């Protein structure tokens, strides 16, 4: 049983917000914390790890109480079995890849674990390199490997892929998904990327201004459940232009621009920057091999 019941007053750049969440997580699954920056997502991870103390609530991970205001329990970060992957990776520059992993071990008798994880993350060839010689994607894999080597009870990933380019991000999403499912480790991923949510999440928690506004499967949250479409994509409007008597709305879906014909009436409610869903009801889309 994993319960997050956290209250904390945060003072951010745009005033104070009250972080107040109460949620039970699915054991062994990946839950995405979704929301704009400043919603308190990263702070929640830091509170779970014990790096930031909440004002109240209770944190129970796999049945173990790590924090409880009521019972006056507050384990120090060292006693919490977390694997934390930071946005900037936080690899130790003075250590090689292998030494970074060895440092993470609780006892040197588990050294075989290092080689196992290096193998799992396909890092064996890089093991004697220093972090400064690695690419962003490789550093990311080392950070994940270092978090896994301690066999944590919960894996906390703070926007781990946001600094990477699109192709590398897609590749690492697959890898993350594979490793997470293989190890069956309860995981919280902070993200503000909807495609990432659909690809990785078992459940999503939508966080706004420190509060949970919605939670459920990615489809329930972002699927546009009131349209029974044959296909649908969510994207962002990048351009609206007039062409003769109709309007052409350009929508960015993933890496592609899709142009949609719209009437003048329809365009009055649409603005550049809006998130929209494109769907087809009456006609079957044509599929050709690319």
């Amino acid at each position, binding site marked *: 049983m994993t319960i997050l019941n956290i209250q904390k007053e945060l003072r951010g750049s745009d005033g104070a917000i009250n972080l107040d969440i109460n949620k039970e997580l699915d054991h062994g699954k990946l839950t995405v914390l979704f929301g704009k920056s400043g919603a308190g997502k990263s702070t929640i991870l830091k509170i779970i790890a014990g790096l930031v103390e909440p004002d109240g609530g209770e944190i129970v991970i796999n049945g173990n109480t790590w924090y409880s205001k009521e019972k006056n329990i507050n384990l120090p970060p060292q006693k919490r079995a977390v694997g934390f992957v*930071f946005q900037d990776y936080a690899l130790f520059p003075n250590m090689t890849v292998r030494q970074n992993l060895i440092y993470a071990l*609780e006892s040197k008798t588990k050294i075989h674990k290092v080689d196992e994880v290096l193998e799992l993350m396909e890092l064996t060839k890089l093991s004697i390199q220093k972090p400064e010689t690695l690419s962003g994607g490789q550093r990311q894999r080392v950070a994940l490997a270092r978090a896994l080597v*301690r066999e944590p009870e919960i894996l906390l990933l703070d926007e781990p892929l946001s600094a990477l380019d699109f192709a590398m991000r897609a590749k690492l999403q697959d890898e993350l998904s594979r490793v997470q499912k293989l190890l069956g480790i309860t995981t919280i991923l902070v993200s503000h990327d909807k495609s990432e949510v659909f690809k990785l999440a078992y459940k999503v928690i939508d966080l706004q201004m420190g509060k949970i506004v919605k939670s459920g499967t990615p489809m329930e949250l972002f699927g546009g459940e009131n349209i029974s479409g044959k296909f649908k994509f969510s994207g962002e409007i990048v351009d609206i232009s007039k062409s003769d008597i109709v309007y052409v709305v350009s929508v960015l879906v993933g890496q592609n621009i899709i142009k949609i014909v719209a009437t003048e009436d329809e365009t009055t409610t649409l603005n550049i920057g809006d998130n929209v869903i494109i769907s087809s009801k009456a006609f079957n889309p044509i599929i050709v091999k690319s």
Partner: protein
Amino acid sequence: MIEESFIQTMGLTFKLAGITTIILLFIGIPLAYFLAYTKNRFKPAIEAIVSMPLVLPPSVLGFYMLVFFSPRDGFGQWLDEMFDLRLVFTFEGLVVASIIFSLPFMVHPLQSGFSALPRNLVDAALTLGKSKSNILFNVLLPNIRPALLTGIVISFAHTVGEFGVVLMMGGNIAGETRVASIAIYDEVEALNYSLANQYALTLFAISFCILLFVYMVNKRFLKAQL
């Protein structure tokens, strides 16, 4: 021809600088660590005290230390009676004076070294179950090697070059408190320019070599980090 007194004086100078630097390292690391990470509201006051020797005339510092450590009254008398330790006009006194006077030269580089490291390194090590002291020795200190080197070398060089505090606290006793910078003054007073030049040239050359070494090594460190 090198006189015996020259060797004795230079030896004493480096002994003083060496001992001072080693003790400063043990004081400077915890102090800089504290200043870099503390949220204590007295931090500005502590920083101001540490930095005082940078702006205060050495004679002011020397004068108060002379009064404070005088064996005739107060703290100096207590030290004299309890530990048979006399700090005025002795080598031990010079060490104490040099430690206080060179403190900012050790603390400042270390403090900026600690502050420049990403905060996440400490957080990451904490989530990996490591204690604060383990993190200090295995993560923080190895990653501020350029700052450590700068602190050690500048403290050493600054102690070698000190004049005012040393003169006030130590006087000019051959083999006990006469260091190179005092000896230059002494030889000039005695119109013994060739010996004064010998001291001066030696200090000049050594200071240049030390600084050259620091800049060359740190350049390599910085390159390695890019």
